[in-house]
Structure formats: C-alpha cells, structure tokens
C-alpha cells in the first residue's frame, strides 16, 4: 500500500508500533567520534524518527541490530547450563537499500549455509525492515556497481520529503499510518561518483600466490575497522567467561570477529595461518567478491563503501577489487595474447 503521510501522522504511527516493536535506526552522537569534536553515527534503539540521522552515512552498519556485537548464548554452572533469553518483542530496523542487501547476505550465511544458526534465527524471525530511499550517493559508495542500489524485499519503505513521507507498506502488520493513497517509487541512486567492474573470472589459487597483496603487508595496520563497519562481515569469536567469585560458573558469549585482526587464525598449538596483513586482505577480498559468489551466486560486498570511509590508512576496497580485475586480465592476456 502506497500512501502519503504527514510528519505528525508518521510519528503517531510509529508511536503505535512502539507498543509492539523495538525500533532501530542510525543515531548521531555528538563529540563521540574517533577524533575530538567529531561525531559518531551508529545503529541503536530509538523512540522516534527524529532521533535518526539520515543526512550522513552511518559509520557503522545496521547489522548490530540483527547480530548483537556481544551476544550471550548461555550460562553454565558446573555441568548445568541455561540458555540466555532473547527479546520477546518484535524489531523494526530502518536502513538504506544497500544495508538491506547486506541483511540478505547475513541470512545466507546464518540460515542457508548448512544448518540454520539457532541464536541468529531466534532473533531474526522477530525482525522486519523499513528501507529509507536513497536520493544521493555518498562518498565511496559503489552500490550501483554491486547491484545493491535498488530496494528489494522490504517490509516497508519510505521516502523522506520536506514536510511529509511517502510510505510503501508491504507487511500489513505495519499498516498503522493515516494518510492518503498515492503513487510513487522509492528513491534509489542510479549512479555513484565512480563505478567499478567486479571481475567475472577469478582464479583464487593464482591470486593467492600473486604479489599484488604484498603492498598491504606494510600499508594495513590490521585494526579491523573495515570488518567492523561492514554490513556483510558475519564472523564471530567465542568467549567463555568464568565469574571471578566462582570459577565453576560463567557464561558463553559470541562477539563480532574480524579476519583482519590478530588472533583470527590462531589455533591450538600456537599456529597462526595468516600473519601477513596482505594475506588477510586477500582472504577478505576473496570472500567478498569470489567465494561467497561461488556458493550463493552473487557477490557478498554491497558497495556501501564504509570500509573505505573507515580505513585510517586510506586503503580503498573498491580499488582493491579493480586491482584484482587488472591482475586477472593480465593473466588472461598472458595465457592467450590473441
């Protein structure tokens, strides 16, 4: 159902939804950025639309709403254990089209990659998505190149206009807004400031030995910002906590992991598989534009460009994709000069 809704009616509708739903959106925190007198924009629970920040790209993606940064799985006492509870309330996440495409990839990894993940599924089934149309591209965005610019499979979508909203409600549970019917399309960008070509032919064995990754050995600092801001990085780490007062009791959490950060490939016996930062970069790049695609038929990267926004070393992931493309092209030329 497509309708035009006034600001007041929109807020009234949200207030109705808030009785049943926890609402998540991007929130600006003044003075809480990395550097002094800069802001932080992160996803979190909100209680009104005005709390959300849509003028600037959020530094962090909405994945924290679906996959909590720290997720308590169970408590243990000696040989007994108790499952941690999950929210009983429904969840509504406001996000950009690229990020909704990111959610599809999260679902792929957690639900369709072998047996569904119990803890993910438990929370995921409570969640609905509202896409916020994108009128203009931000710096470093390349969603058009990744095909994630068009909003798809949303529960609701909206265009933010000067004094009203254009609302497209698909899920009837969300049809609580008073407004008049109208026809419109949800905004999406058709052009970014640059476009890239993701190579079709990727020889991962050849690339694994290629020296194109060596520049990152010294350029990258392995801070993991690219992973943590990424809407499609799904890795986690396990933490077992033994309570100080009684070490026979404790809890197991899972916590966001990052393939660029130390200890990711550590295994028992003191072995580390990818010590070189360039090798970690290769692993990440191959996952985003090659091996996920091999399994699921489309690229993992959605082109939100947050990795480039966040990298303190000015490493561009979109340029890295282009470098992979150039290496593959050169290989094909060498094999068949014609």
């Amino acid at each position: 159902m497509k309708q035009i809704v006034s600001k007041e009616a929109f807020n009234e509708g949200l207030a109705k939804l808030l009785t049943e739903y926890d609402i998540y959106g991007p929130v600006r925190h003044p003075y809480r950025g990395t550097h002094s007198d800069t802001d932080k924009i992160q996803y979190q629970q909100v209680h009104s639309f005005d709390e959300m920040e849509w003028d600037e790209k959020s530094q962090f993606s909405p994945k924290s709403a679906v996959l909590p940064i720290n997720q308590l799985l169970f408590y243990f006492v000696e040989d007994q254990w108790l499952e941690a509870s999950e929210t009983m309330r429904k969840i509504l996440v406001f996000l950009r089209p690229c990020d909704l495409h990111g959610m599809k990839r999260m679902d792929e990894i957690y639900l369709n990659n072998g047996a569904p993940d119990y803890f993910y599924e438990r929370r995921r089934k409570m969640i609905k998505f509202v896409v916020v149309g994108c009128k203009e591209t931000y710096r470093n965005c390349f969603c058009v190149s990744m095909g994630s610019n068009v909003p798809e499979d949303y529960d609701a979508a909206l265009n933010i206009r000067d004094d009203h909203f254009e609302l497209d409600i698909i899920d009837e549970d969300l049809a609580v807004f008073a407004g008049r019917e109208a026809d419109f399309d949800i905004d999406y960008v058709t052009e970014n400031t640059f476009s890239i070509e993701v190579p079709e032919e990727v020889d991962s064995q050849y690339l694994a030995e290629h020296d194109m990754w060596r520049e990152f050995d010294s350029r990258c600092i392995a801070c993991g910002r690219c992973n943590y801001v990424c809407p499609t990085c799904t890795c986690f780490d396990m933490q077992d906590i033994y309570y100080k007062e009684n070490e026979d009791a404790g809890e197991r959490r899972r916590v966001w992991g990052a393939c660029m950060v130390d200890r990711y490939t550590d295994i028992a016996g003191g072995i580390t598989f990818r010590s070189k930062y360039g090798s970690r970069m290769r692993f990440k790049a191959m996952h985003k534009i090659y091996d996920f695609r091999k399994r699921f038929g489309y690229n993992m990267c959605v082109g939100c460009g947050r990795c480039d926004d966040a990298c303190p070393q000015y490493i561009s992931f979109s340029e890295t994709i282009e470098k992979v493309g150039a290496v593959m092209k050169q290989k094909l030329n060498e094999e068949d000069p014609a």
Partner: protein
Amino acid sequence: MLRDVNTRKVMKNAFRITKHKYKTALRVRVPGGLGDPLVFRTVADIAEKFGDGRIHITTRQGFEILGIDMEDMPEVNEAIQPVIDHLDTNQEKRKAGYPASGTRNVAGCIGNKICPKAQYNTTEFAKEIEDMIFPNDLHVKIALTGCPNDCIKSVMHDFGIIGMCLPEYDQSRCVACQACVNKCKSYSVGALSIENNKIVRNHEKCIGCGECVLNCPMLAWTRSPKKYFRLVIMGRTGKKNPRIAKTWLKWVDKPAIMKIIANTYEYTAEYIDPEAPNGKEHIGYIVDRTGFEEFKKWALKDVELPERCEVVPTVYWDERKIW
C-alpha cells in the same frame, strides 16, 4: 631625525631595543599561532616598506619584523592596524600599535583544527585567554597544547594547558580486539588491561592522551563531551634556575583555568618586587618567594573546580641545577 627616545615606551609598544642603535623590530602577536593570508600579506608589506626585508618567526608564534628605522614607528603602527583588527587584539588606541608587551603572545600547538591526537581547539582557547589578559605589562607566558605529547612545550611555561581525553567505555560495543590495551602500553602509560574479555582502566595511571579512543575500531571507547585539561605551572627557561613545570591540577576545566589565570594576575600585581629590574619579575620567582601556599590561596579564590578534578596539594619543582 630622532634624537631622544624613551626606550620604556618603545618596548611597551612591542618594538624592540636592538643592538643597532635607532633600528628597531616590531613584534606581531598571533594568538595560538594561527594566521591567514591577510596577516602574512600585511607583515610582508611592512617588512618590505619599513624593514630590511627580514621576518623572524618567533618561538612564541609571532612575527618579528626586522630592520625598522625608529623614525618609522608611528607609520608602522598604522600599517599593522589591519592585523590588530583582523586578529581582534585588544588595543587602547587605534593606530597606536600594541599597547603592551610584558604578557607574551599566548602560544598553541596546531590543536584539533587538524591534528588527530589533539583533544581541543588550542587556537580558540588561546584567543579567549588573550582576550582576558592582554594588554598587560606583567611578564607571563602561557602555552596550550592539544595532548600530552606537548608539542608546544607547555612544560616550559608559567601556565601549560594540556588537553585531556576522559575515556568512556561502552562494554556492549567492545569486541576485545585489545587495540586500546596495546596502544596504551606502547604509546602511553599502560593504564589498560583486559579481564574476562573486557577492558579495565586504571584512572590514576591514565594521562588522558586519548589513544584508546583513537584506536578503538568499534568506538566502544569514546571521549566525554565535556573537555578536561591538565594544568602544569611555573616552568621556565632563563639564567636563574630554569625548570620544567609540574602538574598542579588534573581533570580541570576551562572556566576554572580562566579564573585561575585572572587570579594569578592579581596575585602577581600584589607581590611583584617593586625593586625588580625594569619592573619585570617572572611569576615563577614570585611564587618561589611567597611560597606555593600563598600563590594557591590567591589562585584558587572563587574557583569552582570540576568534581573529578585532582589537585596536587603542594607542588614541588625539580630544582636540579641545569647550568
């Protein structure tokens, strides 16, 4: 042709008595060391028209325009007016140049205008202090620095104002990557440790450098929106007993610092040695004479310190001989 010159008035007017008789140099104040093309152009024009073409960039971030004939001082004062207006420097009479030179230009490091490490805008704070204390004949040196790296060398000043970051920790965002622990250890004081996969911060050890915030990829560490400073006092260079300043107040705020500086001017006016050569006595030596307790009594009058401010009860300076 000038024959009789009152050197006291010349110096008070920010012109120097140089080794070359009847040649002077003008000291241009640039609070916080931030200029712009108008300032540079005007200084350049004066150097070309009245000076010998040389401009010295002073250690206190001003300019000194060399080789000016003393006869030209009134015209130079007129010519420097656009800089005084543009930098909004307090003046008693327009086109009469600088009204005092005792209280030196308030210096600042580059600060958070661009420096990633800095915790505040040193230029803005320097300007606020300059507005409050200038013009004044008392010999006071103040420097502001964005972080404990202290690039401006505030520890060699009467008042050194060092930016501090009060880190606040959102445990729910922490992924235990330990970037903060490692950076605090390698760059700073090692105030962080990890316990049960969460970070423990030792507040006593913390110097507020902000490395934890700067290096946290999750922004689990952020700095408090309220700004804090470390105030180090009575550092000095010079022939008599040079020494590094010592911390007096940790986690102090801007209003308290402003009031303390204003109070110190009153204290200095009360206790300055009337017999001091040229009426010039550095406040550090006055504090040496009156004792720290008397200084403290004056300096803290009507000052509201923030709740978390840590006060060193009695400051002792390191009196090891340098010479």
